[in-house]
């Protein structure tokens, strides 16, 4: 049975009043009388208390619940800074009433990110008001089977902030053998965080993405981000299309293809065209792999799309040639959406 049938079948026979119009009329007239009385009273109250109102409201305003301790993310796994560290899956039950949960992207690699252009971009700290669902998901994480110090570049750490106790860091080590319950805290966090953003952000709050003046070709990733960038950086959940939300701003950049630096030739801001690009790229996600055997690339096209829920502009890169018979190309619809703004390649 589908949802519609299930819901319609659930509606019982509903009795109607003998004269609904009369009942509605009574409500309407009562409402008008109340509105008239309320208007008169409001004028009198306003005139009477205008002078003392500021002090009155100040006294009665409720102090917001303030979390205890700093909201600072740790820089390394050794950065304990007097805070309580917990490893997910160790069986400790975390208090379920946080005031705020901050997701941190912790460096655990020995390389220096700043010196390595291939290092995935770090996610800035992301703060979620409340976050009881995240704590519940953390408390459901299964025990760890074993951990290895092999792959780590970055790992998510949740900072739980409470009103009545010191903050707690919860470490989700991606190098541990684990089950699907380990993916849930991040999934729940991102779902709630994006929803919070959708509630609190307007299109005017979203900065229009800008084109970098040059792009370093040797370190160029044709995918939208380096492949190991996690969902905290991308803001996209597993199984979702590349652009799950409507664009609030989109910028199209075209670079002359030169090594080692491709230089910016055209930059266009076009939100409507961003919507058409989104449709095309969601239907045929592509990393614009180009023609691997060709070296006569003409231009590099970069599309940056920001949305209300997005944590950072998504970026798509396409290495363009006149024709491509031996490689994987982006779908024609995607390239057409790009060319609609930037013009045909020449």
């Amino acid at each position: 049975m589908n949802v519609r049938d299930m819901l319609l079948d659930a509606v019982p026979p509903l009795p109607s009043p003998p004269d609904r119009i009369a009942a509605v009329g009574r409500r309407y007239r009562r409402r008008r009388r109340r509105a008239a009385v309320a208007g008169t009273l409001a004028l009198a109250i306003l005139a009477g208390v205008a002078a003392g109102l500021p002090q009155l409201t100040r006294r009665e305003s409720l102090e917001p619940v303030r979390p205890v301790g700093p909201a600072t993310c740790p820089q390394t796994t050794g950065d304990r800074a007097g805070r309580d560290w917990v490893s997910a899956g160790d069986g400790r039950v975390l208090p379920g009433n946080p005031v705020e949960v901050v997701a941190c992207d912790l460096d655990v690699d020995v390389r220096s990110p700043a010196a390595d252009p291939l290092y995935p971009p770090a996610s800035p700290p992301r703060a979620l008001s409340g976050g009881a669902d995240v704590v519940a998901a953390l408390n459901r994480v299964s025990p760890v089977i074993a951990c290895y110090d092999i792959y780590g570049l970055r790992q998510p750490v949740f900072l739980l902030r409470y009103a009545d106790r010191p903050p707690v860091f919860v470490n989700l080590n991606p190098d541990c053998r684990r089950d699907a319950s380990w993916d849930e805290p991040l999934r729940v966090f991102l779902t709630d965080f994006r929803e919070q953003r959708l509630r609190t952000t307007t299109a005017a709050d979203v900065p229009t993405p800008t084109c970098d003046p040059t792009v370093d070709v040797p370190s160029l990733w044709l995918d939208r981000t380096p492949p190991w960038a996690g969902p905290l950086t991308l803001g996209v959940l597993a199984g979702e299309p590349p652009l799950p939300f409507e664009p609030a701003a989109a910028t199209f950049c075209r670079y002359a293809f030169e090594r080692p630096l491709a230089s910016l030739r055209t930059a266009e801001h076009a939100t409507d065209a961003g919507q058409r690009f989104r449709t095309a790229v969601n239907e045929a996600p592509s990393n614009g792999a180009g023609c691997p055997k060709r070296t006569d690339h003409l231009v590099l096209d970069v599309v940056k799309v920001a949305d209300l829920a997005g944590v950072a502009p998504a970026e798509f890169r396409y290495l363009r040639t006149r024709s491509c018979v031996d490689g994987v190309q982006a779908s024609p619809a995607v390239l057409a959406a790009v060319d609609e703004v930037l013009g045909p390649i020449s």
Partner: protein
Amino acid sequence: MSGSPPDGFTEFVAARSDALLRSAWLLTGDAGRAEDLLQTVLATAWGRWPRIVAGGHPEAYVRRVLFTTYVSWWRRRWRGEVPSADVPEPASRVDLAGEHADRDVVRRALAGLSRQQRAVVVLRYVEDLSVERTAEVLGCSSATVRVQASRALRALRADPALNPQPSSEEVGR
């Protein structure tokens, strides 16, 4: 104008009340509150009826007020009027136990959703509105509608007593 209903209002109420009341019940899960919600909305429409008709889509307008009034209830303690004095007993109280139990399962499952999720479910799957129209009615973004619809369906699927299947067009959205 305040004594008798405006032109066309009585005909509208007669023609559309059943469908609106059905949606109101799916939102509230209670016949008394559904009638209360409907009368509240119709009383709002009464005073603005000429302008609503001039807008060209009176049913869309009233439906929008119905859903936004319902969603706004959570922001304040409900102080609505109780219409039970005007609501007669049903003509027949013969209600098979099994049928009643089935309805109760759905009613309880809906009660587990947030107000906005219930509104999204009813608009999308009962009123058959698109994501964009649902967003317009509720005054939120399309993305919010998708998120809320997805969460609501997930919650309903998780209910051991229910196993709702979205229509084929919903799969993959």
